[in-house]
């Protein structure tokens, strides 16, 4: 079986999905089911105190018994905020160690602050977290994060929520070639072909949220992403043909044609 292994645990799906921006929890649940994803990201936020006693809880729709939840540090701009958020997540999820670290540097681009990300990763790894880390497509940053002990490197394809697709496949290729832990594209995927390209490049998986949640039909897009990730992975494993830049190669026999070929 061709499985994705992260921090010693085996997953059959290479598509990881977020739970943000959906109309309601029922749409969230339907999209996740259609995506086939097993690892599901969640955010950690302050709760309303003393109000909305019957407010529905995300974890009722996405139960930790059924999915591997991946709490994130979205919205955190400092080491301290990110580390505290994940400590709270671990308490919330009964000692759960797998987390997604992102330390942002700028609210307009949501570009990662690599210096702060590295500092946070060092603390979290020492505290026993299995850190999947959101990073830029800088191969040196990726290598340093791996050396610290992150269990997966997750470079952006383009800005979070932009849907701009894979803007620098060459850098992703360098990161993939160098890494000994799984590399997952996190952020920037806009449609199914983007996900397929990521897997064709040799990425071990793709994490996405907006591409599904902001589609006109999120459940159908979730299904499309599932197929794109499977197709991209199979194409990668199959090994693509070599590109021939300036010469065609006929697919049909050249002998026995009833017409005569034009002279060279």
């Amino acid at each position: 079986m061709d499985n994705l292994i992260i921090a010693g645990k085996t997953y059959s799906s290479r598509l990881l999905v977020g739970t943000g921006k959906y109309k309601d929890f029922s749409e969230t649940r339907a999209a996740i089911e259609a995506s086939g994803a097993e690892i599901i990201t969640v955010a950690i936020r302050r709760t309303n105190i003393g109000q909305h006693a019957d407010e529905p809880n995300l974890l009722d729709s996405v139960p930790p018994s059924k999915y591997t939840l991946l709490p994130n540090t979205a919205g955190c701009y400092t080491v301290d905020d990110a580390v505290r958020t994940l400590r709270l997540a671990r308490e919330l999820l009964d000692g759960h160690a797998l987390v997604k670290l992102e330390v942002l540097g700028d609210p307009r681009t949501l570009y990662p602050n690599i210096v702060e990300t590295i500092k946070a990763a060092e603390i979290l790894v020492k505290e026993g977290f299995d850190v999947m880390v959101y990073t830029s497509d800088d191969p040196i940053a990726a290598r340093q994060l791996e050396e610290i002990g992150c269990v997966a490197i997750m470079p952006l394809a383009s800005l979070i929520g932009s849907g701009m697709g894979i803007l620098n496949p060459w850098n992703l290729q360098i990161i993939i070639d160098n890494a000994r832990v799984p590399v997952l594209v996190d952020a920037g995927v806009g449609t199914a072909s983007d996900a397929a390209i990521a897997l064709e490049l040799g990425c071990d998986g793709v994490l996405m949220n907006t591409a599904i949640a902001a589609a006109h039909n999120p459940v159908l897009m979730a299904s499309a992403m599932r197929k794109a990730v499977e197709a991209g992975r199979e194409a990668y494993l199959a090994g693509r043909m070599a590109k021939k830049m300036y010469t065609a190669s006929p697919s049909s026999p050249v002998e026995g044609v009833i017409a005569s070929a034009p002279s060279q």
Partner: protein
Amino acid sequence: MIHITINGETRQFNQPINIEQFVDENNLKGKRIAIERNGEIVPRSQFAEQFLTDGDRLEVVVAVGGG
């Protein structure tokens, strides 16, 4: 009277209160929450033992949709 900052808002309490009582009184019992007190996690097993003191800062969080 003590003042506690809870999720960024200051609240007054007229008598000593532990975290378990705070959770009960705010309809949070049995919910999937986590609590941090002055930057340190409060394990659920310690809710009854930890009494809030003047100037404490509490964060009470839940999981929400996100990517």
